[in-house]
């Protein structure tokens, strides 16, 4: 009985000290999300301040909207493509630069430079590089006797060009995460494998990658979440064009919310995007937690 009372007291104390943080979290996270979920079921026009319940009407509208579907497809392609390449390049770079060598510190500073830059600055630089007539990339191609490339003006290439910018900016992040993972692996493991006569290929695929599995999955999770929300690069480099070739869900949501002030539709599009991110994140998290 005394023990039970003490336990109850402990639980009460626990909740008492936790409640301010919990209230703050609910207010900052759960409330906005709930508010978006409720708004997604309404026809809410901010300009005229009118709301009416439409149930799943907004979802139906949006899932039947060609622009949204194309945006979703583009976002998915961009997200999976960039994540895959960035993680792969990060692993390759980390393996290549494993161990101590002269100038490693300078290299590391230079390597993380792109991700320290503001995305808008990165876009301004790349927009000039991509320019069809005066861009450095096309100038180089022409100097080599090759055809100029419609980096941002060709509907079949524009999304890849955006992906290229993201890969340039964020591969250093992958490199650092994997590099940190590698550094935490005791060198004895690699030395033992050398003594046992393992080839380089075996050392990479049988030892290094399995050890780094969790870091790689975590990295893929972080990059997936980030790239699925791509907005600034599209806004600054192509505005979603040519045609709808680079439209993304974030741009769609932004336009519905802040150009048309149709918060019902934008909320529904946000919920669909959130569901997609949660699904993808769940896939990675399941894999990470399964092992644990």
């Amino acid at each position, binding site marked *: 009985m005394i023990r039970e009372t003490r336990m109850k007291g402990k639980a009460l104390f626990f909740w008492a000290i936790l409640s301010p943080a919990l209230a703050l979290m609910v207010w900052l996270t759960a409330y906005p999300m709930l508010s978006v979920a409720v708004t997604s079921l309404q026809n809410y026009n901010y300009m*005229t*301040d009118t709301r009416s319940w439409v149930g799943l009407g907004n979802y139906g509208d949006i899932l039947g909207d060609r622009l949204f579907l194309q945006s979703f497809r583009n976002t998915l392609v961009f997200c999976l493509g960039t994540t895959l390449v960035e993680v792969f390049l990060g692993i390759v770079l980390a393996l290549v630069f494993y161990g101590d060598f002269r100038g490693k510190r300078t290299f590391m500073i230079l390597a993380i430079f792109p991700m320290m830059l503001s995305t808008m600055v990165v876009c301004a630089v790349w927009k000039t590089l991509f320019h069809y007539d005066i861009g450095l990339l096309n100038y180089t191609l022409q100097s080599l006797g090759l055809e100029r490339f419609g980096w941002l003006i060709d509907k079949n290439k524009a999304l890849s060009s955006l992906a290229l910018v993201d890969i340039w900016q964020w591969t250093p992040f992958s490199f650092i995460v994997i590099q940190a993972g590698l550094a935490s692996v005791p060198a004895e493991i690699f030395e033992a494998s050398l003594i046992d006569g393992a080839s380089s290929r075996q050392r990479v695929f049988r030892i290094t990658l399995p050890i780094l599995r969790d870091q790689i999955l975590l990295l893929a999770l972080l990059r997936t979440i980030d790239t699925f929300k791509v907005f600034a690069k599209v806004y600054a480099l192509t505005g979603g064009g040519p045609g709808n070739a680079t439209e993304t869900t974030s741009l769609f949501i932004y336009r519905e919310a802040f150009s048309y002030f149709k918060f019902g539709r934008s909320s529904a599009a946000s919920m669909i995007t959130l569901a997609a991110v949660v699904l993808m994140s769940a896939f990675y998290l399941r894999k990470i937690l399964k092992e644990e």
Partner: protein
Amino acid sequence: MKRFLIVTLLVLTAFSVFAQAAKKPVKLVIAGRDGDYGNAMQVAVDAYTAAHPEVSIELLKLSGDDIYQKSVIDLRSGTGSYDLILIDDPKSLQFQKAGWLADLGDYYKKAGKQADPDFIQSLVNLCRYPNQPSGKLYGLPFVGNVSLFAYRADLYKKYSLPEPKTWTDVLVAAKKISENESGVSGVTFRGVKGNPIVTAFLPVFWAFGGELIDAKGQPSVNSPEGIKALSYFLELAKYAPKGVSMNNTAQVRDGLLAGTAAIAPEVWPAWLGSMDDPTKSKVAGNVRVMKHPGEVTKSAPMIGIWHIAMPAASKNKDAAFDFLVYVTGKEAQKLMAIQTGLPPSRSSVYDDADVLKLRPWYPAVRDALVNGKARPRTMVWGEIENVLGDYLQMALIGDLKPDAALNEANAKLVQVLK
């Protein structure tokens, strides 16, 4: 004597209190535009604050999208963060109808003045709701902006081409110059989706007899006239530089200045300052500016004025009204025209000899303003522009045929206008 001293002291105290009140510092916040408009308004702000040291003005220089978003959020919540705002003409109805703006008629009455007839009257009517002389005045035209047509007079002469009277003439000229003049595109225009491509297309669309919204309030972009206009536009685009679909202001302006484009069917007065400047243009003195050609109907330049209006929630309405009257007055309009090339909204400034000496293309601007056409008054212009812009660009890059593009756009516009 004692009584006299007390009375004198009281009078002096009262005077000093009134003097204090009269010189009470006021701070105005203006949600203004960036770029050329921002530079022009800064000139007026500097001149005004020099003459009124008690007034300080914070001029926010915002992009077109930013100013709209910030203004809507502020005016809708009634916080009164801004004392004056600039409004893009086709979006003005949203502000006028919502009751977010102060009726300037009341302030004119209070000041014993009237909005004088020197303003180009068709522009003032756009600032009224309803848009007629009897409508309430919710703003004044800050800038007499209108789209113009520009062409290289030297190349026209070289190839014995007549001054373009119709869009058919323009196509003939663009083809001839493109095929014969090395390194020069026959035409250049803004092809980026949304506002740029719609703005480039509208003078053609209207001249071919198209209307965005019919008399019944229904979208009609896919009328036979509209489809003909888009087919023509795509034909003209064959003589544009590669990548015209991603062309924006900078590319059009640079093309004209570098002499790599012969015709620009859409230029704006603020761009023209550099056209005759040999330090900026390789073809200075050779670019001629005029109102657009006609086709089935007469010339239809697109009016692109910006209104300056006073939010009803402003906390400094008297001071804001005073600046509003100043910045749209003859003195400030002339100052801005001379120093920055801002196209005025007042007739007298277009007749001013000092201004004309510096801006010889102003008669063409006034001609276009008087003959110009405003975009439809609707609450959903932003959506109309984006939908139409998306489909125009899809046609431009070859994803859709003109009829398919406009049919799909029209179907979507029906939903937008529902």
